[in-house]
């Protein structure tokens, strides 16, 4: 074989480099796919567990009603029916969460982006929560007139709802929930604070992992699958924003969740 000309040699080297880089890239995406796959397998396992609990209650209460209807006092019947309706809603919520999160994990959220003012969206969420949870008090302080960002308005509200639901859920009766909304460094910054137990520093990032629930007592008494924050972050990141758990402005006990979303048109 004739020796390679300098030009051929150059080509050859470039080709080798290229192949090497591509291989690295492939290995990288393979690793990511593997991680995603094992996450998915784990997801399915935990999901089936989470669904089995309400299913056991539903079957049990329905069977008991069926077998003992004639013997049961009116009050018990009413109570059992209430449980059935409560457990069915729990199942529906869970299925909705599974749907949302599997979309997020696969990067397949189909979003309908539009430029929208976030303030009225937040305002309407707060209004709904005030109606639904009359025992809590909700404060809403905005220091901007409008905060226009490119979001899917339905998903934005869903993300905010998950965070607000946590504030309600983990705050003991009559708690205060405060929302601060401002424009800062080209971003809309939404801060949701409550005066519940808060999240210890070492769990503040973990709290966003799918199915993470801290095992302490307070938490154990509240229902949940550990998906709310995962969904909220997945959605807000799709808007190129961020969600983190932080200290409260006052430094007092409680949870602060901070959502930042880039403003449309780069205005600040």
């Amino acid at each position, binding site marked *: 074989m004739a020796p390679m000309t300098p030009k051929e040699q150059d080509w050859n080297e470039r080709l080798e480099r290229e192949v090497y880089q591509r291989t690295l890239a492939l290995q990288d995406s393979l690793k990511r796919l593997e991680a995603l796959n094992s996450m998915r397998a784990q997801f399915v396992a935990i999901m089936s567990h989470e669904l089995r609990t309400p299913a*056991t209650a539903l079957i*049990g209460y329905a069977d*008991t009603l069926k077998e003992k209807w004639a013997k049961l006092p009116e009050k018990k019947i009413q109570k059992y029916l209430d449980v059935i309706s409560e457990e069915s809603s729990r199942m529906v919520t869970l299925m909705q969460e599974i749907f949302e999160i599997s979309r997020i994990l696969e990067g397949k959220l189909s979003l309908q982006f539009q430029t929208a003012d976030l303030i009225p969206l937040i305002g309407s969420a707060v209004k709904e929560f005030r109606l639904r949870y009359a025992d809590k008090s909700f404060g809403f302080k905005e220091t901007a007139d409008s905060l226009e960002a490119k979001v899917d308005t339905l998903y934005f509200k869903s993300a905010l709802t998950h965070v607000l639901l946590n504030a309600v859920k983990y705050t003991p009766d009559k708690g205060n929930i405060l929302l601060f909304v401002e424009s800062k460094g080209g971003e809309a910054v939404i801060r949701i604070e409550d005066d519940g137990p808060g999240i210890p520093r070492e769990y503040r990032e973990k709290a966003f992992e799918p199915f993470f629930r801290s095992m302490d007592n307070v938490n*154990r008494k509240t229902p949940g699958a550990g998906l709310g924050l995962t969904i909220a972050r997945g959605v807000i990141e799709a808007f190129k924003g961020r969600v983190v758990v932080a200290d409260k402005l006052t430094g007092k006990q409680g949870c602060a969740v901070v959502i930042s979303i880039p403003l449309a048109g780069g205005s600040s």
Partner: protein
Amino acid sequence: MKKRTVLVADDEVNLLNLLKDNLEEEGYEVFTAADGEEALKVWVQKRPDAVVLDIEMPRMNGWKVLEEIRKVTLSNEVPVILILSAYAQHEDIQRGMALGANKYLTKPFKTRALVETIEEYLKGK
């Protein structure tokens, strides 16, 4: 005849109430516990005739409670029935048997099945 007693431990309050109602209906006296530590406390105080344990409970899981119970009883003295979750694998079942559980039920199970299991173990006691 003195009422036979059962301890039921589960952190799912709806499930706990359901099992309690059904067992009471069958004539048992039922003690309940919402976590493992409480279950152990009730066990020590009341020494029930039979025990139903959910495996996944806060503070102390069902395995640990079972272990403690078996330090002072034999499986033919006090039956312990375990409630396993969806991912009940072969190992879980073996582990339960090794620790001295009498039977396990996997969610979702029929309430009737649990009641009948207890009846069966306490028959003639």
